[in-house]
């Protein structure tokens, strides 16, 4: 009934290979997002404008690998169906919020579902929900792999939060939602930043080869100027939704998981039928 459910019986256990893949993907993902700060002068990436494209391909490949590893050993029909239905809900919410700047109610579902179904499902769900949203709106663009992995992290993180229950749990999830919503924006902007401003080395632009601190402060300016207005509402919306709707939604997710009886095998006993 309470928050321990996910902990005791993870719907999707994160095995060592999956963990290793996830770890490596996270490293590469960090590099993909942070390379404007990490690349050293004179390194292979510092001067080309190809780095973002390279990372698009790499991240797409690695996201596929993580998802394959997480689902390794075969997802059973229940997990596939639940994942499918929740990803549909996430994708639909994404389309719903698409019209309004930054208001992305998908994160609300992602945080709660990650919490109830655990880290593994949280990651896969985040990635799938983004993809479903992209399919529904008719466009898979180069941003999709980055969004998938970032949303995957949001779901994963929700599944990895410490145990709590009742109001405390909701407050924790709301806080997490706020932070995750903001961080998601910060990270996603990083991907786009070099595209938008490379080659114009001043102001809020990325300057290949500049010291980290200088690039960082420029990114901060860029972020404040362009994105905070989108990300803050997203974080706040997620937090508000978790506080307002968290209880019934958590309850219905937990009820659903309980009814699904994930991982059950059923028993057979020999001999006579009951009362026979």
């Amino acid at each position: 009934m309470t928050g321990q459910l996910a902990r005791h019986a993870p719907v999707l256990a994160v095995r060592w290979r999956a963990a290793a893949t996830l770890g490596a993907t996270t490293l590469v993902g960090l590099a993909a997002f942070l390379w404007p700060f990490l690349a050293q002068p004179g390194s292979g990436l510092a001067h080309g404008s190809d780095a973002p494209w390279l990372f698009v391909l790499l991240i797409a490949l690695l996201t596929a690998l993580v998802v394959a590893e997480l689902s390794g050993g075969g997802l059973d029909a229940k997990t596939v169906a639940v994942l499918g239905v929740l990803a549909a809900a996430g994708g639909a919410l994404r389309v719903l919020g698409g019209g309004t700047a930054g208001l992305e109610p998908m994160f609300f579902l992602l945080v709660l579902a990650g919490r109830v179904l655990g880290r593994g499902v949280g990651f896969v769900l985040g990635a799938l929900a983004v993809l479903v949203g992209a399919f529904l709106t008719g466009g898979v663009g180069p941003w999709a792999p980055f969004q998938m992995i970032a949303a995957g992290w949001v779901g994963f993180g929700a599944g990895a939060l410490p145990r709590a229950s009742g109001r405390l749990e909701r407050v924790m999830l709301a806080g997490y939602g706020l932070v995750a919503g903001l961080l998601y924006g910060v990270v996603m902007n990083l991907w786009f930043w070099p595209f938008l401003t490379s080659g114009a080395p001043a102001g809020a632009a990325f300057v290949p080869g500049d010291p980290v601190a200088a690039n960082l402060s420029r990114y901060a300016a860029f972020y404040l100027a362009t994105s905070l207005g989108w990300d803050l509402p997203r974080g706040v919306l997620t937090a508000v939704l978790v506080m307002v709707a968290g209880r019934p939604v958590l309850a219905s997710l937990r009820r659903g998981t309980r009814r699904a009886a994930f991982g059950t095998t059923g028993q057979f006993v020999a001999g006579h039928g009951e009362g026979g």
Partner: protein
Amino acid sequence: MIRFEDVGVRFDDGGEPVLSAVDLQVDEGELALVVGATGSGKTTLLRCVNGLVPHFSGGTLSGRVTVDGRDTRTHRPRDLADVVGVVGQDPAAAFVTDTVEEELAYGMESLGVHGDVMRRRVEETLDLLGLADVRQRTLRTLSGGQQQRVAIGGVLAAHPRVLVLDEPTSALDPVAAEEVLAALTRLVHDLGLTVLLAEHRLERVVQYADRVVVVENGRVSSDLPAAAMATSPVSPPIVDLGRLAGWSPLPLSVRDARRVVGPMRTQLAGRAPNRIVRSVTMTGQGEALLSARALVVNRGRRPVLRGIDLEVRAGEVVALMGRNGSGKSTLLAAACGLLPARVGSVRTGGLDPASLPPRELLRRVGLVPQDPGLLLYGETVSAECRAADTDMRVAPGTTRTLLVYLAPDVEDRTHPRDLSEGQRLALALAIVLAGEPPLVLLDEPTRGLDYGAKTRLVASLRSLAAERHGVLVATHDVELVAELADRVVVIADGELVTDGPADAVLAGSPAFAPQVAKVMHPQPWLTVADVAAALAAS
């Protein structure tokens, strides 16, 4: 073909065993009909056949179930997919893909059937179930009957030898149900398939059955249809009539019944059904609670209602009939302000419902939607009732009291989703009635209801009418209409085709005649109760 040996099933919730000491054998090529009240264990019995119980559901199974010699202990449902095909009640919930051809092929893809064979079987299945014209359509755009046939085709394409169907027609209108049943009987006769079929609406299927399996409180007995029906706890009107008249063997089809009905007709000759002619509109009494004048309503750009004139007055029960998609639900939606009138007008209690604020609206009209679950949000029945009291601004406890009256056996702590269909409907009705709206609308209330729940529903709606409520029920269920309605309104393609007293409309129409009327034709009897009353009086 299917063998249950001393089977018992118990789920992990610590309750009573759902099935116990079941011994059952269904031979190859038989169509076995499973009957029983809601909650009797029918679904569990069906799900044992391919091992969904207990492999998928959890729980404990004792004894042994074998299909075509394969034991469900050692074969999981997926390993039985080439022997048993399972089709559920809601076809749309079982679709994995989104076009007809892909859905038919899906099962075979999982089984690794070779491409050429798969292609051939899909073509065969399309012809067998009459789906060739819609082969490339998106599943969502198909009618209910077509969807159910695709669902059957989806399991059939893998060439199973047993087909298990859990209420395949209960969500369908009579025409669509007929399509599906015709397809099924063809499969049994042409392919020698063994079919195990559960169904509430026995009047539709009992005449096709080779064997009837009765499930009552987890106990299972099986017999030839006529013998089983003589003692079955649930029975269609024709069997009730046969029992009343003491016919032996019991007739199961209208054709059989008409052969033996002669003496009864002679006995009743010259009598009219002693139905209280309640239709107040005909006599001009009662205030008009709903009046539509030349009403046109659009869904999107498409006009669904094209100029409807209709009145519902206090104290009458009006049945709204017509095909799926003829505009019944749209009319109800317009009557409670969910859709605006495009041309013409609709008035509830003299005001336009679409312009009323929601809080005002529910004082005038209440709607129980097709899926009563839509009205339910609470986590327990008691929470739901308390929320309803607040929503309707009535004294605390009002809804709960109503619920006790409508369905005495509902427990406080149950989750609304875990209620049976009948209980859920009762809860939704209780919520709607808490606001004491003069006009009550119901959309397809008898979906998935067993005969017992239906009888209770009829009683509560009749007593509403007696208390001067107006009731408008959209339904396909002619047996319900025969028992319940004063007046019948038939719409087709958004236009009103017939509006008249129930007796005249039902008895006079081949499409809407209830079983009793068909048997007693040309005498105007509609229900077993009418006949019984007349016989008792004679």
